[in-house]
């Protein structure tokens, strides 16, 4: 049985419920015959992927939904063998850089050339070009992005790229220059509440509208999160009422407790205790920057106006170090120590 998030995912552009102007735009691009390369960006859970899958369907028809997974082998210049999974239909292919690690450049070079040099196999295909969707494009290495540049121009008769990213800041300028930027904003609270109600209706669950609103707000405008919350509330409660409590994820509870610790006690032993909690979070694969960010927003309401600016300053400072440094725990710990200090003064 699939999750509601997947089960009720709209399959076509006209079934998408919010940002209808964007859906119209994508649909006229898809029907125009010369579809550009796209860079689709927006916060996570905003529905980028769903929208793109729907666009592909508009481009090629239902055949794109027949997906299979091939395992492919690449050989690096240093003769190392890389195995890599590729998701594809007859018309399109999907790759994710985090699956390829530091070798993303080689895989991209090989894979895209191969795609570009092969014809559409389905002779009655609606488009002459094939589409390669790159998930998490903002995690491509600079080298891999550079490798895309001329490929995007040279093979444009046979190949279109759709890059998906949370932000465009890590996409190099020459790539941005070659794509049409498509922003997908997170749905509003009202959008989310509406979708929750309609899913509830399809699942024959009675959902009080005030609870739908609360789930929407709690989700931080993240539709995926909202739907998951709704499904888990439904499975944990016999009846959903306007004041059914919405549980906080475990890891956020831990972060909140760190925030409390930081306010309460300022000493070396306290820091040691906090460090253990950080380690615990990290060992559960919670990304360090998510920890720091959540911690910041838990701390802010607890401190005076004068201090808030300073806390933001140091949070931003150490968050940056998380990305440029080598061991994330150092920076989480340093932020905590810094906070204790400025809080005391």
């Amino acid at each position, binding site marked *: 049985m699939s999750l509601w998030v997947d089960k009720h995912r709209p399959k076509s552009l006209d079934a998408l419920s919010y940002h209808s102007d964007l859906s119209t*735009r994508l649909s*006229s691009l898809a029907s125009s*015959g*010369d579809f*550009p390369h796209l860079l689709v*960006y927006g916060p996570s859970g905003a529905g980028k992927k769903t929208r793109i899958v729907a666009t592909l369907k508009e481009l090629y028809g239902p055949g794109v939904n027949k997906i299979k997974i*091939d395992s492919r082998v690449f050989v690096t210049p240093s003769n190392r063998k890389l195995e890599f999974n590729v998701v*594809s239909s*007859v018309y399109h*292919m999907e790759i994710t850089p985090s699956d390829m690690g530091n070798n993303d450049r080689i895989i991209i*070079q090989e894979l895209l*050339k*191969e*795609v570009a*040099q*092969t*014809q*559409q*196999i*389905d*002779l*009655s*295909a*609606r488009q*002459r*070009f*094939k589409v390669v969707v790159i998930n998490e494009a903002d995690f491509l290495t600079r*080298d891999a992005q*550079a*490798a895309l*540049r*001329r490929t995007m*121009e040279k093979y*444009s*008769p046979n190949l279109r790229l759709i890059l998906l990213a949370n932000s465009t*800041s*890590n996409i190099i300028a*020459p790539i941005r*220059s*070659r*794509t049409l*930027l*498509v*922003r997908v*904003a*997170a749905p509003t609270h009202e959008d989310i509440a509406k979708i929750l109600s309609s899913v509830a209706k399809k699942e024959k669950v009675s959902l009080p509208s005030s609870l739908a609103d609360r789930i929407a707000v709690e989700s*931080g405008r993240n539709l995926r999160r909202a739907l998951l919350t709704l499904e888990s509330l439904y499975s944990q409660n016999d009846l959903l009422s306007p004041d059914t409590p919405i549980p906080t994820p475990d890891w956020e509870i831990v972060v909140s407790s760190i925030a409390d610790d930081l306010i309460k006690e300022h000493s070396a032993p306290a820091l040691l205790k906090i460090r253990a909690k950080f380690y615990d979070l990290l060992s559960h694969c919670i990304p360090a*920057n998510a920890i720091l960010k959540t911690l910041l927003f838990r701390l802010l309401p607890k401190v005076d*106006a*004068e201090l*808030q*600016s300073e806390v*933001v*300053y140091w*949070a*931003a400072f150490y*968050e*940056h170090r998380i*990305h*440029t440094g080598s061991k994330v725990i150092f920076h989480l710990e340093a932020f905590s120590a810094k906070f204790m200090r400025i809080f005391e003064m």
Partner: protein
Amino acid sequence: MSFFTKQGGSSSSKATGTANPRQVPWVEKYRPQSLDDVSSQDHAVEVLKRTVLCSNLPHMLFYGPPGTGKTSTILALANQLFGPDLAKSRVLELNASDERGISIVREKIKNFARAAVSNPTAAQRAKYPCPPYKLIILDEADSMTQDAQSALRRTMETYSRITRFCLICNYVTRIIDPLASRCSKFRFKPLETGNAFVRLQEICKAEGVRYEDGVIESVLLAADGDLRKAITLLQSAAKLHGSTADDEIVKEDNVMEVDDEASKTVTVRSIEEISGRVPDSVINSLVQAAIPTPRISENFSTLQKAVENVILDGWSAMQLVLQIHDTLVFSDDFDGRAKNMIVAAISETDKRLLDGSDEHITVLDLLVKVSGILRKSN
């Protein structure tokens, strides 16, 4: 049947099945074919034309921001020197999508560089200058490793009698000095509004695009000197409105189609919508939230909320910072000292974003800093 099955092996341009044969992006369709078609880069083009006349070419280094005509210029030049047939044996084009590690430099590039120069046929000689050397184009050379670049030095010198190099890059500082100093440098500037305007007008005419006044101006504003971006934007906008001559023909056999002239005209608003530029109202509301009032704590929560909304609306942080910069720095409301400090804060923000920092925290930090700076300067 697999996605990878080769059909006829090559990418021959035979259109298949019902697929639309007109699927060439305008950027490729309107890529300059000769040096005369290259807009705006007068200096570079002038010098290069002279080299065509006297058939003497130095090693060259083209540098400049994306979409300014570097690749187009060298391809046009190669074509003008050798013609399409001879170019096959005389020109080697390698770019970042090709493997260009040190071993390739040592083998492929070196072998090509030292190979004897092929002879043009009489027909070719009649039409093109066919100078007696080969041309190696290393496009996107800034992505070559230092080692690979060093290995090029000798090759460049040893075979300079029969081989010329053209290196192309966005950032001239990424090319090692010993290489750069062996080349004549050509800087490609962001396209001037005047020339780019004419180019876009020509394209609109050729494609039969209908547009309201101010459309081309707003395309150029969004593209910021990048003609490729400008053309892509224009094409997308035209497709969104179905406002090109092509679309008309397609629709002719559809008798029921109600011809709605107005909706087929590209508007300034639609350009703004697809350009990725943040609307002024959004920027102003952010800046307004950063302007300090006596109520510090209320101030802070307003600012925090404003930043959160903008981030969740998905606006790109880089673009936000760029426009915040312009709004603050060109404003008359702040003194020079405050502006100095703001610019320093923006510099730090830009660096952090490039390093992959979280956009939400980073933008919040910037605006909190701005707010603090303004508070002190009052």
